[in-house]
Each structure stands twice: as C-alpha cells, then as structure tokens.
C-alpha cells in the first residue's frame, strides 16, 4: 500500500515551495531535500544538538522536531535567508567570520538562526545573556569561546548599522 502523500505549501525565506511529502517527513528533511536548502544541518534528530534550528515565525525552532505537514501556516527562515538581499553577510554572519566563531561549520547554521532571533529580542546582551542565548546548541569544534564573542560582536555591528 502506498503511503499517503500530502501537498504542503511551505513558505521559506520569503519564497513559496510546493512540496508533496508523507506526513512523517521531518521539516528538516523537507527543507534540505525537498526545498534544496541544505544549509540547515541535521546533527542528532532528537532535538538536542540544535544544528537544525530554523526560525518558525521568527522563533528559533528545531526543524527535526517538527513535521513538514505542520509547517503549513508558518513563515520559515533558514540560514540561507539570513544573508542580505545583496548577497553580503548579515551582522551575525559577519561577526562569526570576524571572531572565528566556526570551524567545521556544521553546527553553525543553528547558531546563526538562534542568535539572529535572539538579538531581535535583546539587541544589547551582556556576556552572560550572550551565553544563555546559545545555551541550547552544541558545537564540538570551537569550545564556544569565539561564539560568545561573536554574539557580542554581532550586537555591535547591528547597533552600528
């Protein structure tokens, strides 16, 4: 028996993607494989690592803990959507480059989306608040030192622009 397919209209980074998926398709897989937005990475598929974090209606959300069929009414933002329209890096992306906030780059998209939303809520975080902002994302390379610096640097760039 064929598995039932659902026609789902996903709104991602301002574009509409019409995809046909089974109910069990995780949003992370739909973004990566059906929408071709492979910037969102999958590190654990049980909601702990945060690599797959995207913004759902502006809020950081684990895309591996959401079904694509549940995302119909939402506006999703992935790492690809953070880049400025002219192709230049957004403040958070630029700050990661400035501060060497990434090494292998695999966890990075989850940090970038989380921080982008975090700075909307709190544009001028203290160091402790910066740490709290990224406290739900795992990175195995950087020891987080430069990620925390990048949060503060991003706030600086954002304030200056």
């Amino acid at each position, binding site marked *: 028996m064929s598995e*039932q397919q659902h026609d789902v209209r996903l709104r991602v980074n301002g574009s509409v993607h019409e995809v046909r998926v089974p109910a069990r398709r995780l949003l992370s897989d739909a973004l990566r494989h059906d929408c071709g937005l492979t910037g969102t990475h999958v590190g654990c598929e049980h*909601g702990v690592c945060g690599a797959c974090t995207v913004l759902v209606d502006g809020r950081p959300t684990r895309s*591996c*803990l959401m079904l694509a069929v549940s995302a119909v009414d939402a506006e999703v933002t992935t790492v690809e959507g953070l880049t400025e329209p002219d192709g230049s890096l957004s403040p958070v992306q630029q700050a990661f480059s400035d501060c060497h906030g990434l090494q292998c780059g695999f966890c990075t998209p989850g940090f970038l989306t989380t921080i982008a939303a975090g700075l909307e809520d709190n544009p001028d975080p203290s160091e402790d608040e910066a740490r709290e902002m990224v406290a739900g994302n795992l990175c195995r390379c950087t020891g987080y030192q430069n990620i925390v610096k990048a949060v503060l640097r991003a706030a600086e760039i954002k304030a200056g622009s």
Partner: protein
Amino acid sequence: MKPAPFAFVRPSTLDDALAALAADPGGKVLAGGQSLVPLLSMRLASPTALVDINALPDLGHVRVAEDGVRVGALARHADVLADAAARESQPLLAMALSHVAHATIRNRGTTVGSLVHADAAAEMPMVLRLLDGHVEVASVRGRRTVPAAELFAGPLESTLAHDEIALEAFFPALAPRAGVAFEEVARRHGDYALVGVAAHAVCDGDTVTSARLGFVSVSDVPVVVDVTDALDDPAGRALADLEPGDDIHATADYRAHLVRVLAPRVLAAAIEHARSNA
C-alpha cells in the same frame, strides 16, 4: 532515525479533532511535539495517526484571572514564561519553566502537552500537582475537569483516555501569605533534573501553617509531600514517600542526598517568600 508511517490530520475545529481522535484508537495528539517527535524518530512510539491540533482556534491563551492562570493547549512554554501577569499571579510557573529544557524547545513545546506527557522528570507536572491545579479535557463524549491529584497514572502515563484532548490547564494563583520556591540539580544546564524540588508554604505570622514539597525525578509520578509537621526535617519526611532510583547519571543514594540538600533550602526560601507576601 526516521518515523514510521502514520496517518495525519490537521483539523481546524475542535469537533473535527475530537472526532478524528475518537475514530482511531492508535491515534495521538500532536501539539508542540517536542517530546513526541523524538519518540517517533527513534521509533519508540508508533501511533497509527496523528491529530495535529495546532490549527485549532482559541487555544493559545495565557489568561490570568484573580483565581489563577489558565494556559491553553497551544500556549508554548515560552509564552507562559514571558507572561508578566502569569508570573505575578503564580511565581512558581516562571521559576520552574526557566528550567524546562532550552529556550528553543520552549518556543515550540506546550505546557499542557508537557502535563499530559506525564513525565516525572519534567518540572510542570510536579508544579501542577504541588499547586493543586487541574486540567480541562474534552472528547466526543463530553468535557470534564481532571484535578492534578488524579492526572498522573504512572511513568509517562496520564489518566486521560485515548480520545481525550487536554484543552487547558489551570494553575491557582499564589494566595496571600503563601510563598513558593524551586531549585534543581541537573548534569548540564537544560538537562532533565537529577533532582528538582519545589516548595509551597503558607504562613500566619511566624507560624508555618502549611508546608508542601513537590519533587522531580525521584519517583515514577510527580509526588507532593506535606511536611507541615516536619519542618525541622522535611527531607527525612519526604524520603519516606519517595523512591529515588539509579541511572547512568546518578545513584539512588546521591539522589536521596540531593533531596536532603535541596528540601530544607527550598522550603526555607518558600517560607521567606510567604512572609514577604503577607
């Protein structure tokens, strides 16, 4: 780690949702999904159908009235945590919610979902139990109110029937001369607590007229212990009712020790809170 197949509906009315759930004994409600989806992906849960209630109207509320806080089935932990009026009405909500996983999980996970998931290692079931709140549930058979004391059946098992949807939770407001406190020890920030303790105390002048403790991760179901008569050894009193267990993160002895460390500390904080709340 991908879920097994299941049928899926996303109804836009409560009646449709209840009908869908009633139609399939293997069906399950999907709200925030922060506990359910990992179980699906690990194939530890294989419901035949999911009824996604996220499109239902009027369930996202955090409503504060004189008697307490009403939290709708679609209110996310983050909504409750951020609600200043809720915090004012019942401070234990925010105290406990800030320990619920990480912010990203709280953005999607629902407080009501956490209650009916009935995990004794989670904070909110214990909070509802300690505060003697209740949950409003509905099914095609009608509506009923389930008091916290009757909500938890066993490990990860609530007393809700398979066709029932929890629509709202009610957390009573903090009464005058009452105080609350919460503390937990976890391996990592954001992990499930090795032990968590909340306290609810009521004072009349210098006299403590009621003292109750709620515990996380030291029993199969959320446990509340009345320690009004054991103020000088609340932990000793509580441990008689608790069953701390061994796991890979901590021994039962260490958990019992944490109960001894946290219980008097949290109780003292709640009493102090109560006195300042005169």
